[in-house]
């Protein structure tokens, strides 16, 4: 396993948002994390990235125990992320946003700018490089977060609902981008609500409900269980599945 949470429990007071979850992603894999709203996906995700410290359990990256490591140190090891609600640097240009990521691997401003420019080209934000991040819409912001994360040259990239709120066309473009990222050799963990995304992208899927892992397998295996679909992905996803089949 490249990145792995073992027996992770996160308690907010008496409430366990994540309850003894053990999930890991292998090098080169695309892991999908799905489950209804409030299942604890983001909470688990934040334990992997260091935004939260689990109440119990541990997190391991490339054989190293990183449970107590702050997010900035995990970024240095090669873990990058996007946020469910985009947190772009509003006061900065798109280029400067991406430079913040690039600075992780170089202290030199000119070089950071060059590398950031290349990443912006790669994700298709080049026309907006000098626009203010504030001027971007939701799809632009989500793309900018991915660009910023890529600029840190990660080994594993974690995306928290990177496609929520996009139109079908935008989702298709985003899927193409994520595929390209995977092909460049980056391991991916994608948390999604939209079933299509998981089916087209993930090699393995973990289903969360009420803080627990309830299913684990290929998209076909997991989604062939009607009760999983109905009970944990909701009716909308169930319909989408039938359409997809």
């Amino acid at each position: 396993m490249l990145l792995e949470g073992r027996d992770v429990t996160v308690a907010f007071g008496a409430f366990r948002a994540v309850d003894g979850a053990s999930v890991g992603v292998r090098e080169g894999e695309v892991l999908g994390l799905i489950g209804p709203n409030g299942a604890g996906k983001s909470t688990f995700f934040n334990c992997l990235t260091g935004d939260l410290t689990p109440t119990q359990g541990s997190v391991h990256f490339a054989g190293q125990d990183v449970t107590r490591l702050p997010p900035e140190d995990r970024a240095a090891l090669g873990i990058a992320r996007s946020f469910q609600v985009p947190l772009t640097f509003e006061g900065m240009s798109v280029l400067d946003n991406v430079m913040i990521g690039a600075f992780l691997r170089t202290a030199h401003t000119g070089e950071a700018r060059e590398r950031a420019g290349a990443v912006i080209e790669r994700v298709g934000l080049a026309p907006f490089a000098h626009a203010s991040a504030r001027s971007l819409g939701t799809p632009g912001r989500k793309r900018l977060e991915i660009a910023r994360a890529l600029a840190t040259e990660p080994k594993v990239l974690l995306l928290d609902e990177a496609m929520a709120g996009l139109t079908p066309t935008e989702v298709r473009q985003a899927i193409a981008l994520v595929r390209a990222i995977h092909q460049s050799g980056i391991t991916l963990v994608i948390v999604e609500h939209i079933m299509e995304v998981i089916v087209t992208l993930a090699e393995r899927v973990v289903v969360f409900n009420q803080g627990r892992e309830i299913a684990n397998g290929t998209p076909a295996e997991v989604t062939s269980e009607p009760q999983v679909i109905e009970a944990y992905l909701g009716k909308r996803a169930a319909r989408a599945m039938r359409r997809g089949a």
Partner: protein
Amino acid sequence: MGLLRRFLWPAIWLLVLLAFPLVWDTPFQQRLGTLVLLYAIAASAWNIVGGYAGQVSVGHVVFFGCGAYGALATYTHLGLPPIAGLPLGVAASVAIAAVVGVPTLRLSGHYFSMATIAVAELVRLVVANTEFLGAAVGLSGPTVPRSVLDLSFTSSLPYYYLFLAVLAGTLALTWRMENSRMGYYLRAIKDSERAARSLGAAASRYKMRAYLLSAALTAVAGSMYAIMIGFIDPESGLGILISVKILIMAALGGTGTLFGPLVGAAILVPLEEISNNVFGGGGAGLTFVVYGAVIMLLARFQPGGLLELLGRLRARAAGRGARRAA
């Protein structure tokens, strides 16, 4: 055009600053110019942590005091020229900044602000009760210069150019920081600390660096002050009103901008000197009533300071011009 804009205006301003005390050459005017530069150094130093890092220190006088006391204590106890005490003042400042910064810069910025004011008062009380540092009476510099190294002159002119050089150094350092990784990181951290950390920016470490740099430069300003005035006591070296002046000058001109603190100092120092001359001692209270009102109005209507307002007005005028042309 671009080249002109880039080099012409800075060159003109530099010329103005160099020529100022030669053109306005009465002792009062020269002294005024010197004080503007002195406060501009302190306010620019404050700006590094307060403006760029967004951590509002309301007790910056403690570093000013370290510099001032460092200089005059070195003269008093070792007989060395006051300037030799500058490194001592810087070292003390850095130590105090570490004591305040290490526990608070990890927490919400309010803790930092409260700690800065409390520690400044703490140091003032300690110094006021320490015989070695002159207690309530204070310390004096050499009354008659023993050599040029004592930097004791009757005219303000030499101080003017000395302070101008120090200010230039401070601004150059700030400019380099602004355009380096640290400057980018600080802007990002101010915007969203969580996102910045996810990208590898060690937020508390960079805030700490900014604070240490700011403390060291403020100590330099304090040493300069003590060398020029030749006297320091707990009120003039560690009084809360100096913190207030430093803060308001940076905020008025524009926090987080390179020249904001200089602009603020250039406005407020003459105003205060003039009001002191007009009202005498009775004006002192009134000056700070006005300062309080100005700070509130700034916070309420223009937290970005005057330079930002100017930029916005200019952008709007340009926009209007462009529309008219179209």
